[in-house]
């Protein structure tokens, strides 16, 4: 085995593998040993893929030897388990799909594999990507690598924990209302949600189709840009994917923020944050200015309606998207006296409480008599929110705000659904508007009752299609502040 350090970044790994100084096979062995050593305590993976990883690594090495240029050659990848990968168990974190093996591969996953990534495992998530803590998985517990008594964030909690615990170099997550950005903030990572439609959703098990977007979770902005560049672009298999050229972002990374105006949203409620957290964000905005940005105030008068709007549209779509899990063709089936009873008992046994809650809300919001009052009004509010962002971006290039209202909290700390929903207060408006947004590490705070400092994430948001600008600016901020490397994950000492 080589002296491969599992902390190396994707760009670095790909360069070394391409140059022949590292083999994908050696990398994968190092990462698999790490998984074997720590995943018992972290629980990032629902399904580790040792055999597939080794086979893929051998194949990558052969391709490199044959002279193929692979932008992500040998890069260990964690895949959120709501994305299909042929021949692997794909559960969406639900009992109803606990034993389902995907017969095809999601486009985003396929593109990364084609670019040279090696899949290490299928990562845990909140059931059907519904949740903000990863506590809603029906199939396993994932812990925050920076404090194992705390949640990794959700719904892409497994993906975040895998990268933070050095069980993968990059991970794919899906973001519907903040499900990449919030766990990235909790786990000291860069979490990037591209413009809606930039990355194909084909093969992503749908939660809310008009909001879902696949994106990377990485330990650096550069890795996020590389991953994004490798998977973004039109896909004939997804009618909502954008048939519009993708400007590469890995070559647009900036050294400073001079010439950029960064907007702070007047309407965002900072009382949610608490004094310590608020102070770190204030410092973050000062750091943006220190990097050369001009800080301006912008207004998003409808921003406060984001949460209410989201919790009508997302459940409405999920109530329909999850209909297919009925026990007829695949997944769990509870035998019953007739087909109607089979549906009822299968879905009762197969779905967890949060999923059921949202199906009920969504079914109600779409039912005749309530459709206009709820669904249609929410769609109108969504349009207003998108227009507000357009107006705000007339006065600034990027918007900055918190990624989450608190650092990672302890298990079972958010017992009522509403306080959990409030975690996404800052991420939801961007999702409703389809905008690209990311979370980048911005500081540490020791939460009340906590024994260790926990990371916080700064959210940056750009106009539609401005991914290169967004990633470029985040890179400059990351270089200037170096928050990401301030503390190490505390899982090394833990034996399985």
């Amino acid at each position, binding site marked *: 085995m080589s002296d491969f350090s599992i902390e190396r970044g994707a760009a670095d790994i790909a360069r070394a593998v391409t140059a022949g100084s590292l083999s994908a096979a050696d990398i994968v062995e190092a990462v698999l040993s790490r998984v074997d050593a720590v995943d018992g305590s972290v629980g990032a993976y629902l399904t580790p893929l040792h055999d597939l990883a080794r086979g893929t690594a051998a194949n990558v090495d052969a391709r490199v030897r044959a002279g193929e240029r692979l932008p992500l050659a040998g890069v260990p990848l964690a895949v959120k388990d*709501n*994305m*299909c990968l042929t021949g692997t168990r*794909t559960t*969406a974190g639900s009992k109803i*799909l606990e034993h*389902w093996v*995907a*017969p*095809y591969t*999601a486009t985003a996953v396929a593109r990364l594999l084609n670019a040279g990534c090696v899949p290490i495992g299928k990562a845990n998530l909140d059931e059907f990507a519904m949740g903000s803590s990863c506590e809603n998985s029906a199939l396993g517990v994932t812990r925050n690598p920076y404090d194992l008594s705390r949640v990794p964030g959700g719904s892409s909690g497994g993906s975040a924990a895998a990268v933070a615990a050095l069980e993968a170099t990059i991970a794919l997550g899906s973001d519907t209302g903040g499900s990449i950005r919030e766990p990235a903030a909790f786990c000291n990572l860069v979490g990037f949600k591209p413009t809606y439609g930039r990355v194909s*959703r*084909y*093969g*992503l*098990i*749908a939660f*809310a*189709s*008009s909001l879902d977007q696949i994106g990377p979770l990485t330990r650096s902005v550069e890795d996020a840009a590389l991953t994004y560049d490798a998977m973004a672009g039109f896909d*004939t*298999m*997804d*009618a*909502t994917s954008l048939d519009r050229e993708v400007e590469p972002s890995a070559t647009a990374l900036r050294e400073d923020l001079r010439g950029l105006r960064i907007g702070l949203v007047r309407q965002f409620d900072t009382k949610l944050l608490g004094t310590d957290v608020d102070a770190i964000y204030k410092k973050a905005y000062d750091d943006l200015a220190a990097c050369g940005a001009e800080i301006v105030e912008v207004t998003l008068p409808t921003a406060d309606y984001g949460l209410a709007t989201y919790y009508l549209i997302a459940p*409405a*779509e999920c*109530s*329909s998207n999850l*209909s*297919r*899990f*009925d026990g*007829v*063709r*695949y997944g769990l089936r509870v035998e019953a006296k007739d*087909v*109607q009873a089979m*549906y009822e008992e299968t879905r009762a046994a197969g779905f967890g409480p949060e999923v059921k809650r949202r199906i009920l809300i969504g*079914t109600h919001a*779409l*039912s*005749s008599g309530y*459709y206009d009052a709820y*669904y249609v009004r929410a769609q109108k509010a969504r349009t207003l929110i998108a227009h507000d962002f357009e107006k705000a971006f007339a006065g600034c290039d990027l918007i900055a705000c918190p990624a989450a209202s608190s650092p990672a909290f302890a298990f079972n700390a958010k017992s009522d659904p509403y306080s959990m929903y409030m975690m996404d207060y800052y991420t939801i408006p961007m999702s409703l508007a389809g905008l690209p947004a990311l979370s980048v590490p911005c500081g540490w705070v020791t939460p009340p009752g906590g024994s260790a400092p926990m990371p916080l994430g700064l959210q940056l948001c750009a106009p539609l299609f401005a991914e290169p600008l967004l990633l470029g600016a985040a890179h400059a901020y990351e270089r200037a502040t170096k928050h990401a490397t301030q503390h190490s994950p505390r899982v090394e000492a833990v034996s399985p």
Partner: protein
Amino acid sequence: MNWEAVIGIECHVELKTQTKMFCGCPNEFGAEPNTNVCPVCLGMPGALPVPNRVAIEHMVRAGLAFGAEIPAFSKFDRKNYFYPDMPKDYQISQFDMPLTSGGEVKYWLDDGTMKSCRLTRIHLEEDTGKSSHAGSGDGRIAGSEYSLVDFNRAGVPLMECVSEPEIRSSQDAVAYLTSLRETLLQLDVSDVKMEEGSLRCDANVSIRPVGATELGTKTEIKNMNSFRSVQRAIDSEIRRQIETVEAGGRVVQETRGWDEARGETHTMRSKEEAHDYRYFPDPDLVPMELQGDDIDRLRSSLAELPWQRFQRLTGEYGLNVKQAGQLIDNARLAEYFDRVVTASRNPQQSTNFVLGDLSRLANESGVAVADSKASPDDVAELIAMVDAKTINSKIAKTLVERMWKGDGSPKAIVEREGLSQTSDPGAVETFVDDVLAANPNIVAEYRAGKTNVAGFLVGQIMKASRGKADPALVNTVLKRKLE
């Protein structure tokens, strides 16, 4: 009391496309169950639909043919309900913004009357799979041991054509369906085969006292698998409703099945609990924007429609309803016929030859008229020769058979074999004299008053002239000689 029926027809027509509505699976009938399937049409987790452009164009062409409006914007909606043969447990359909709205189906009755029935809308949706229930013996779900589902049909593009309740009789319903089917067939957008399920229809039937304007309670009849069963089912249902009401009962709104063997409808399910389908715009599909240019291009691809052809054939050309129907049924024969008429300018004789002699030869040989060796120009030439009395009708019949075999143009055959009609009075007189001389007994019989023997003499004279003598002249000369 006098009752009248109020009938609306809902037709589901599977569109003829290479691939299914939202995926690349083949759209074909009769494959092994569950072989034409993929993650998309099986509704596998994560699979997404991508619309089939050809299906959308078929819809627009159908809409234009029926004079419907084609809105600039259209979208797909989800119709949510649980059903085992529906992979996603919602059907991608269209709700408030269908691809076409309004329009009418013009149809004709056996007596040549033209009628029309307005369309509410034609919208596009995906078909579901097909369930079969096993173990009970009769194929019904009740008492069956298990059910099998074939998803080959799931995701096939399906046009739903909804009429206004403007049809008043079962005959009109069949005439409406005939015209609808002929039109779709001509547009080449569907095979419209009821036996293969590519055309399926339901009839909504209610009755009311003649003169009433309010609608009565309707029932919906399903499971009709031929136009004949549509007619019988509607008649039977009208009868049942009248009997029910006249016996003091009440018609219940429900779905009724048609039992072909018993010749009666029966309750399938009550419509008391109305379904809430929770329609909403499908977030996996973006709205469709139809460009004026595209619509113009599709409009210009429309040919003469069956009802227009019916009017032309019966009006301009004087064909009877049955003859016109024969030509509407068979587009290639109609095109052949049109070429003959155009060249001959004699619709009557064109009808006689094309629908008579040529169609008979086609039936006997199994070769379509349009594929035969007799070209429309040759047939027109033949008609011109008959008109000019160059040949008589008997020779004409022989010539048709020779042309069918590929012996060449009628003129060439006639010239080659000297078959032109003999109209020279002297020559005819010679034939007549010879036959009279050879048959003194027959002549005697005729003169004794048995005039019907003249036919035999005419036959002998024609035979002697090898069929070439002008029959009218033969008659005149013969009569003169005998009297």
